[in-house]
């Protein structure tokens, strides 16, 4: 069984769903013959034809809006944003039209909007964003952010099969850095709404997602070796709806929770998770819930600045030590 990358896993998921279900089609900028800016859709137009792998003009509102219309009519569109930073161009139609369609009009809108998010690649303020918090506050959407190749494949397949609109945030730093053995053809499905315990531990839980899972695992290794602290790492996988049961379970197990995300702090996902822990498991805590997030600034370009703004493994280690000693 061959190892495939996170990026290839997404492509495999798309390919398998397009083969399984003729209603599935792709829509995005430069995704056809060119195969997309990161080559996620490479070869798919040759395989499935121009009618199912459609090159769109630079019109994010039209891409998302057209996907919604086609989805109402029973098709299963998957939109690509060339960089997820451009999803904001479609913010209005996505939050006002798409997200409310089922509730206000009884319309089914089974569509996926996927694209590369995240930093650590010297992309500057417009090619590095983590937009989840902007959409977390929108009832009617689902949000997914895979950390592993298996989940990248399993979640894209589950997202395509879901009856509601799903935002699928890939991490460009992981595209070619993460490899895993994955069975081709076997139906790898990661159900939406379920977190995973990526590493079992007793003393402290790190709740995180996407690329930060790998930094959390690195930190956990170090803490185990250098401090004898046993760290549990919980990968949320789906950010909306949140897996409350998994969050509560890990709180009850370790009684200490550190939340890590790459997005900026204020109004970020960690705030919501902290509030839920207060609601559901406050009496199980032995320490305040704390968070390691990016500094509250637009993401700068220079390596010195980017490295300073974004959370690093060392930051997680220091924060975890503080938590464990509390």
């Amino acid at each position, binding site marked *: 069984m061959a190892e495939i990358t996170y990026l290839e896993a997404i492509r495999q998921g798309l390919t398998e769903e397009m083969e399984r279900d003729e209603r599935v089609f792709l829509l995005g900028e430069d995704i056809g013959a060119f195969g997309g800016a990161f080559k996620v859709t490479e070869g798919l137009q040759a395989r499935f034809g121009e009618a199912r792998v459609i090159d769109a003009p*630079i019109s994010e509102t039209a891409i998302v809006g057209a996907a919604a219309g086609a989805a109402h009519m029973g098709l299963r569109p998957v939109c690509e944003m060339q960089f997820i930073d451009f999803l904001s161009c479609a913010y209005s139609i996505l939050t006002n039209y798409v997200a409310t369609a089922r509730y206000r009009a009884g319309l089914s809108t089974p569509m996926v909007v996927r694209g590369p998010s995240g930093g650590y690649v*010297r992309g*500057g303020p417009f090619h590095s964003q983590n937009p989840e918090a902007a959409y977390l506050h929108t009832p009617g959407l689902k949000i997914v952010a895979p950390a592993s190749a298996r989940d990248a494949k399993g979640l894209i397949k589950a997202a395509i099969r879901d009856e509601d609109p799903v935002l699928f945030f890939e991490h460009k730093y992981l595209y070619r850095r993460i490899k895993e053995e994955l069975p081709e053809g076997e139906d790898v499905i990661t159900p939406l709404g379920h977190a995973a315990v990526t590493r079992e531990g007793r003393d402290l839980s790190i709740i995180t997602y996407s690329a930060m899972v790998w930094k959390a695992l690195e930190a956990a290794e170090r803490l185990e070796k250098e401090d004898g602290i046993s760290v549990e790492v919980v990968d949320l996988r789906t950010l909306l709806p949140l897996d409350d049961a998994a969050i509560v379970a890990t709180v009850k197990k370790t009684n200490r929770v550190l939340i890590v995300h790459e997005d900026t702090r204020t109004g970020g996902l960690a705030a919501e998770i902290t509030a839920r822990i207060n609601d559901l498991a406050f009496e199980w805590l032995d320490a305040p819930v704390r968070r390691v997030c990016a*500094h*509250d600034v637009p993401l*700068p*370009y220079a390596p*010195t600045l980017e490295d300073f703004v974004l959370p690093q493994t060392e*930051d997680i280690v220091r*924060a975890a030590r503080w938590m464990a000693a509390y």
Partner: protein
Amino acid sequence: MRLTRSLEEKLVNLYRQTKVVGGLFRSLGQEADSVGSAYALDRAKGDILSPLIRNLGSMLVQGATPLEVLRQYMAKAESPTRGRELNIHFNDLERGFLGQISHLGDMVPVMAGVTLSFKMRKEPRVGLVYVGDGAMSTGAFHEGINFAAVQRLPLVVIAENNGYAYSTPTSKQTAVSELVAKAGGYGVRGVRTDGNDVIAVYEVTRAAVDLARAGEGVSLIELVTYRRKGHAEHDNQSYVPKAELEAWAANDPLDRYERRVIESGWGTAEELRDIDQRITAEIDMAVALCENEPLPDAATALDEVLADPPRAELEWYRRLDG
């Protein structure tokens, strides 16, 4: 035009030496668009332009320096954005250029606002904004030019039709065969000309600038040209037919202008060589000056998100002891 081309060529060298931190964007073959149109503005009157990624030349005309551009690409502490932004994303309203963001089309409504201020204050100033065949597909472009047209603002919109937006040919970007056809839909003047003829570019832009200054509103100018390099330096243009590239290489705006200068007796080949040498020396000096400069101090990342407070909070995990 020569300064634009030579500076970009120097940047290619630096890119290959991995001294450019991010991507590198070329305007090879399109230099006449940026330079000819920017010269049609009047810097003394305070005209302002807003470039896109292939309009380095327009910024140089407005007084941006090779040193600034080199520092930007290499993310130096002394760069105009102090390492926060990439490549030619920087501004100087005094010199008359307003930097872009990556979201295409957004600068059209922004420049509508800039020129609205000219109109409100009864200043005889003109704004100029560049878009490409790709940016014209955005909602922001549509809303911005429509707003400017309705308000009869002193704005010139340059539509650079260079054949491709990343890998997408203009035929997949729009169903009209000439971008200038869109002018009618907004009720603005439309002009189309050869974008590789710097004199023609200057003349049509100058006419539009004069009309704008006289209170005659918006013009949309389509410049027909060709992008001879990929979207950025990493892109090998596998999607472009070779014959197309060769045909446009034979229609190079610098070659054409040099021939015209000599044939018209405006200058000699020797004088042109002197100019080239002066430019090379200027660029080499700028590289020597900034190549080994430091990157920005990390903690400056927190400065100036807002005027008040002037500094973002240092996250708690960085305040813990070692």
